[in-house]
């Protein structure tokens, strides 16, 4: 089963890369040189690899958030909103707090999680009180959070000396330090993956969530508190998305710039889908997607291909991997059914 999943991923990636190559050929670019540049700037060498890992942090964290939510049967699509709210709260903390780094960094990370929890909590409460479906509610809250954070960095928290909307830099004590080429933000990512994996696969609450996602009636009859679990899933996944936003601020620009959230959270949702809500797979695909995005920027420097091709490649990857997985599963099922029928005949 596991080897089948790996095979499926590898085949899917290869097909997607070939389709991407065809698109480049049609446009008159050399695909081999392009891919070479792409991976040279993202994987080969310590510095490119370190950058890829750093850029993977928001992707993996929002991907974990989406994967855990989907696997638990909760359609939390609010990662974009939760991410920017987390980033905003961490930035505000970084502007006004002044603690030694060993307190400041965890403090800001906590604030970021609180930001995500609060925003996810709005959607969770609306569902709890009024039974409003979290699917559209979280989508609408994304737009609202987006406008709200732009307002916050345009008026109350604006850097007076800047021309475009952004906050001043946060207190340097809240900056995540570097170890060689590697930014320490990646430890948060690895830590989150490990903790979440144990939580989801080894703890009782994680088991209840997964069962609820697979069959909520069975879970309810088995004695799970569905309402409480829903609340837990929303808040925890909100915290993960919020943390992603906070880490972007603390590792990268050290301030909240307009457009900070970029497409991280939506990419995270895609990654979770590609990974079929598996947590380890989310991590691996997250790093791979990050490699494409990071490499695309370098590729633009030495080839004529615009870096936006990364977005196109990603969408093709998602469609091809998911379609080939479901197609493969359907085919295998058909084969198995035929075999069963044959056994019954004899």
């Amino acid at each position, binding site marked *: 089963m596991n080897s089948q999943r790996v095979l499926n991923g590898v085949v899917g990636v290869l097909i997607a890369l070939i389709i991407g190559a065809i698109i480049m050929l049609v446009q008159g670019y050399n695909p081999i040189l392009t891919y070479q540049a792409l991976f040279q700037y993202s994987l080969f060498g310590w510095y490119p690899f370190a950058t890829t890992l750093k850029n993977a942090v928001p992707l993996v964290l929002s991907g974990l958030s989406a994967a855990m939510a989907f696997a638990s049967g909760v359609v939390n699509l609010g990662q974009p909103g939760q991410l920017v709210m987390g980033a905003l709260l961490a930035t505000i903390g970084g502007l006004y707090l002044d603690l030694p780094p060993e307190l400041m960094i965890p403090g800001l990370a906590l604030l970021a999680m609180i930001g995500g929890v609060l925003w996810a909590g709005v959607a969770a409460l609306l569902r709890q009180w009024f039974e409003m*479906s979290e699917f559209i509610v979280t989508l609408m809250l994304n737009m609202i959070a987006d406008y709200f954070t732009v307002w916050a960095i345009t008026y109350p928290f604006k850097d007076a000396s800047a021309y475009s909307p952004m906050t001043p830099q946060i207190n340097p004590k809240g900056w995540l330090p570097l170890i060689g080429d590697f930014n320490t933000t990646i430890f948060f990512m690895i830590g989150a993956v490990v903790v979440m994996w144990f939580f989801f696969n080894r703890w009782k609450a994680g088991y209840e969530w997964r069962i609820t996602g697979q069959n909520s009636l069975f879970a309810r009859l088995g004695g799970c508190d569905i309402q409480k679990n829903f609340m837990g899933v929303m808040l925890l996944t909100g915290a993960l998305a919020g943390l992603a936003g906070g880490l972007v601020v603390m590792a990268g620009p050290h301030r909240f710039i307009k457009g900070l959230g970029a497409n991280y959270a939506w990419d995270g949702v895609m990654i979770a*889908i590609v990974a079929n809500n598996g947590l380890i797979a989310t991590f691996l695909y997250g790093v791979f997607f990050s490699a494409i995005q990071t490499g695309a920027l370098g590729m633009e420097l030495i080839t004529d291909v615009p870096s936006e091709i990364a977005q196109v490649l990603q969408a093709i990857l998602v469609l091809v991997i998911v379609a080939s997985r479901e197609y493969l599963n359907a085919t295998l099922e058909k084969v198995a059914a035929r075999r069963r029928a044959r056994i019954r005949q004899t």
Partner: protein
Amino acid sequence: MKAFIGLINGMISGATPILLAALGGVFTYYAGVFNIAMEGMMLVGAFFAVLGSYFLGSWLWGIGLAIFGSLALALIFILFAVGLKTDEFVTGIALNLFALGITTYLLRQIFKVKGVFSNPGIIPIPAIKIPLIENIPVLGKILSGQNLMVYIAILITWLSYFLIFRTRFGLRLRAAGYNAARLDSSGVSSAWMRVWSLLICGVFCGLAGAFLSLGYVNLFAENMSAGRGWISLAAIILVNGHPLGVALISLLFGFSDGLGLLLQGYQAPAQFTAMVPYLATLIALYFYAVRAKEKRIR
């Protein structure tokens, strides 16, 4: 009075793209397709509308290319969701992101700009002046002089209603969503009904996109559909897919759009006025949820 007319006209032009996309979604809703790709189809439509209008020199070409682009996306949806039986939700999300990626990429590739492409060479869809009616005070300023696409949208609303509830095609369409196995056993392929519904959705979303970039404004901006596809999905869910209900809800959202513009005149920060349509959606969902709950208790 002038502010009032401005508000009404703002409401109408705000409602039009949502209405057109939602009507497309109504067909897939009845056919039992969980289609969330309206957002992406609209965005691609908006881009191709500008492409056609700018290079081929006519808004008619713009509309034509918009429909073409949006249909192309619908065909990908069909290939994956109907052909390869990929999860519809997954296909929709991936297609929306694909639309965002491909339009951003092509914007850079063809027009050599990032963010926004605006040029006097983009020929907008004209407004239509209706003789006689335009001379009526107040009403004339609302009924006449709207963008051509507004009238088309009204026409399409009735057409959709007629198609879905008064024709054999509509009956089969609804049957495909209601009980696909039954429809199949009666000799009509439910898969083909889903294909047709998606194609219709592609055409309508193309029109919605063309209105966005050649009517509502006269430019293309990255991600300019800005959640309208999601709002149209909410509109469909709120009225259980009835075309006339969708029209009413779209007007409501259009009103909040116009209201936002009006409030901006009173020095409210633009970011807060821009939130109004999304807040309105949340409020509408609240009333829907309350009503659904009451029904269940009864």
